[in-house]
């Protein structure tokens, strides 16, 4: 059984690995994403240059970002940087899972950050679909973010 603990700069360790739950990409997921970002490109619903519809290239980004939730309680956090590399198109009906590893953590101007590299792969074939890395800010113990003071 998993034991969850509040995330902090101190408990995150460079080298620790995460993975997401697997996710079956369903037609309704494309509709939801299209509405969320107001992008109803026919490539996602009708046909594309790849023969048949594909999935929005960044649609599974949240699966990667949420990997740390499989171990930690995250009261709040801010996403600082994102790097995507699109390797192979995703399609409806694929079952996908993201794998990640913490490759750095650092303090800058009094703020704490963690950097995670990731790959999103098709379950079974382990074919890499998307990869990259992202940087997330860890909130201070008070949970109130400095950026928020003038918002």
């Amino acid at each position, binding site marked *: 059984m998993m034991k969850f603990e509040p995330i902090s700069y101190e408990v995150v360790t460079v080298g620790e690995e995460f993975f997401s739950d697997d996710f079956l990409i369903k037609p309704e997921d494309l509709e*939801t*994403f299209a*509405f*969320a*970002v*107001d*992008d109803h*490109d026919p*490539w996602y619903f009708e046909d*594309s*240059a*790849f023969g048949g519809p*594909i999935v*929005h*290239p*960044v649609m599974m*980004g*949240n699966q990667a*970002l949420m990997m740390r939730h499989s171990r930690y309680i995250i*009261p*709040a956090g*801010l*996403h*600082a*940087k*994102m*790097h*995507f*590399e*699109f*390797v*192979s*198109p995703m399609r409806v009906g694929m079952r996908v899972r993201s794998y990640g590893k913490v490759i750095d953590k650092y303090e800058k101007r009094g703020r704490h950050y963690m950097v995670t590299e990731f790959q999103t792969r098709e379950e079974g074939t382990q074919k890499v679909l998307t990869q*990259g890395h992202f940087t997330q800010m860890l*909130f201070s113990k008070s*949970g*109130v*973010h400095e*950026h*928020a*003071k003038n*918002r």
Partner: protein
Amino acid sequence: MPKIDDSIVPGLRLPALKKTITQRNIDYYSGVRPHSIHTDPEWAKAKGFAAPLAQALMSTAYVSQMMTTWLGQGFVVGGKISASFIKPVLSGETLTAQAVVKAVEQIDGRCYVSVECWCENSQGEKTMVGSASGFSDHIRQPVLSS
């Protein structure tokens, strides 16, 4: 033989995308849950924000839309986005995503184009800055230079 599009030169500006981000857009994007700075207004307030925040990653979707519309398959396979999120975006704000060609190079005999991209809010403040790139040998929707 892949075609080289001579009209793609540094300085070429892609058509801007304007997006007003409603709370409903955020709810669909992030999934509604309590104790979320994206979908729980009281929690966002407790964390110091005047309203729930749009997920920063939504801005990468706007860049992806611009690049997929323009480059098509050359972005979907072999494309990249690098983004730094420099200012939070609150529910209800309107963002404009923009991109300008910075470099055109040959990679393995194929033409590869890089753009500088950013999103700015209605006050003209940049909320995201970064770059995106992809192969331009199967242009889907040409960009007309102004």
